């Protein structure tokens, strides 16, 4: 079961894409998925200190387990309104 990463705004522009499919491994957390993402996209690292995360449309900590088939959103500081 893959995990689907969603990217928005600044980080989506930098990555050149809004959606990335990745394999999921046993025990994967937000953190471990992101570490593997950064192997392929090392230029995204500067965004991470300010990112929030959401799993299946709910805010989640970076030590949260990522369930099979999840959607994991990388959320820069919001600026709506």
């Amino acid at each position, binding site marked *: 079961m893959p995990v689907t990463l969603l990217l928005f705004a600044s980080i989506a522009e930098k990555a050149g894409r809004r959606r990335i499919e990745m394999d999921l491994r046993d025990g994967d957390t937000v953190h471990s998925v992101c570490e593997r993402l950064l192997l392929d996209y090392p230029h995204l*690292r500067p965004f991470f200190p300010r*990112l929030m995360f*959401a799993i299946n*449309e*709910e805010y989640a900590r*970076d030590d949260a387990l990522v369930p099979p088939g999840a959607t994991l959103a990388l*959320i820069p500081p919001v*600026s*709506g309104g």
Partner: protein
Amino acid sequence: MLIRVTEQPLKPDEAVAAVTRAEAGAVVVFLGVVRNNNLGRTVNHLVYDAYPSMAEKVLATIASEARDRFSLGDCAILHRTGRLEIGEASLLVAVSAGHRVAAFEAAHWLVDEVKKRVPVWKKEVWSDGESWIEGPESLGLQQTPASLR
């Protein structure tokens, strides 16, 4: 409860009609409008990105919290996305309540919470460049392990 993330222009009349209740004597509406300047720079237009399905969930959560907290009649929150010109509304909040104090407080609180929590982002476009804005009012930074920094 009217909750919507949309590319279409926001209409105050529609939101007022949606929240008006026979027992509610006060309606307050807030519109966030695209300004021609920010932090001393002339703004040409804005582009809003959003995570629409999650944004609508978060808006609905905020609206429910407001109804409990301020004993509201009803509330509506609409956020526009895409390209917005100067003078266009990006955010529309409308609430009804028995009396005006609750209506003003609830509307103000809702706007504050939208700016903290809802996954929407604005890009400012100037004559000589552009930049995604990282909201100073965004939720506190996530704890991120040193290895990701």
